[in-house]
């Protein structure tokens, strides 16, 4: 297996965010531009041309960096607002 296989899929699809989910308990969003709303029942993240809304219970931002946000909690619904 070469290094090419490990390259992020974002390379091929422009500036679309990359989301990695572990069940419905943890989601990592790469390519996030900012946080629009942060509540325990809803987290809205700006990701370029779209806004992604995560609904659930006990939602928390575990890690916030320049382009990456990690959300933990009980996620019941993911909504794309384009």
């Amino acid at each position: 297996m070469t290094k090419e296989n490990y390259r992020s899929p974002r390379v091929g699809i422009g500036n679309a965010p990359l989301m990695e989910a572990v069940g419905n308990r943890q989601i990592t969003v790469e390519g996030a531009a900012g946080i629009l709303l942060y509540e325990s029942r809803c987290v809205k993240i700006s990701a370029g041309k779209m806004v992604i809304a995560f609904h659930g219970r006990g939602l928390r931002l575990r890690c916030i960096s320049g382009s990456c946000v990690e959300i933990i909690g009980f996620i019941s619904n993911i909504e794309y607002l384009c």
Partner: protein
Amino acid sequence: MLVDLIRFIKGYVVFRVVGKSPERLLNITSHRGVMLWNAQPGADGLEASVCIAEYRSVRQCARKAGVRTVILQKHGLPFWAARYRGRTGILIGAAIGAALLVFLSQFIWTVSIGETAHVSEARLRGLLADSGVRAGVLRHAVDTAQAQRHILLQVEELSWLSVNIVGSHVRVEVKEKVPKPGLEPNARPCNLKAAADGVITDMQIGDGITQVKTGSGVRKGDLLVSGVQLTAQNKVRYICAKGKVMADVRADKDFFVPQKDWRTTVTETATRHFCLDVMGARLPCSLSLTHFDSAVCSEQTNRLTVNDVALPLGVVTETTRGIQTVSSVLTENEAKKRLQKEVLLWELFEKGEGRRVSKQLAFDAGPAGFSCHARCVFNGNIAESVDFSVEGEYN
């Protein structure tokens, strides 16, 4: 865990963001590379934690975001140290304590030895001390390999020994040699003969032809069990006779105690000398001026023990008693008691193997002292193996 430790050392504050849009603060801080953690929405606003070094940046970001920050809690070493800034004694004490801990950790505190069946612990401790393995020596100065070699050469009963240094504790693991099983020598032809005069009470014969019966009397040297056996083919076979022949044997002995007795005893007066034992070094704590021409000295060490571990800190008590020789004239009762004791010792150490069946003591008092004639009957094994040579081949 490590991250928490680093945060504690650097110090951090928990703050609340009050304002219209606290999310803006998160965005600005993340873009500026200010590390926030534990950001969680609360009823009164967003709460988060940040290192104290970055809190100034957070306030600048808050001003830009149009929100206000309020410190809720302060944690970490800088705040803790600031609380005790006025109490330098505590800091100096802590520093001295830490230095003392590091310094004392360089020494051996305790030496423990694994269980042994035949080699005494005191002997091993002595040999370890000779090799430089004892409480109070520098840990790095201990040559474990040399100590192992030295002790294995000195103690023949040991097959393996390991000296392990764990922190300030020396653990000595020992393994004793397994004794060789008692191999029966080549069965040379032998008879069983009586070792003493007696009356046979019981016989347990393994090999050989029994020549006597229970109840018969035998004299010393009489043949009890013969090693010459006649086979079914009328051939003579020479074997080693084995067995036990129990017999009642009479034993007589005279004991004598002089009337005037010289006895060496210790005096009632004793002097005690105390020493403080710290890591093997003894610091005298008392002074005694009493002098004895001849004296016996006993030593007792009481060590401080924590969790069943004897620490190298204790009090050594040296008790010295003088020796004196006193003469006394024995009364008849005293003489009888002493003679009875001597008879008991004779039974125990000279006739220990046999069971005593009867005992008669006859006391007599003379001008020089008291005498006692002991007449006892012991029941024991009188069979003794006596080899005999056979000319020619035998099987």
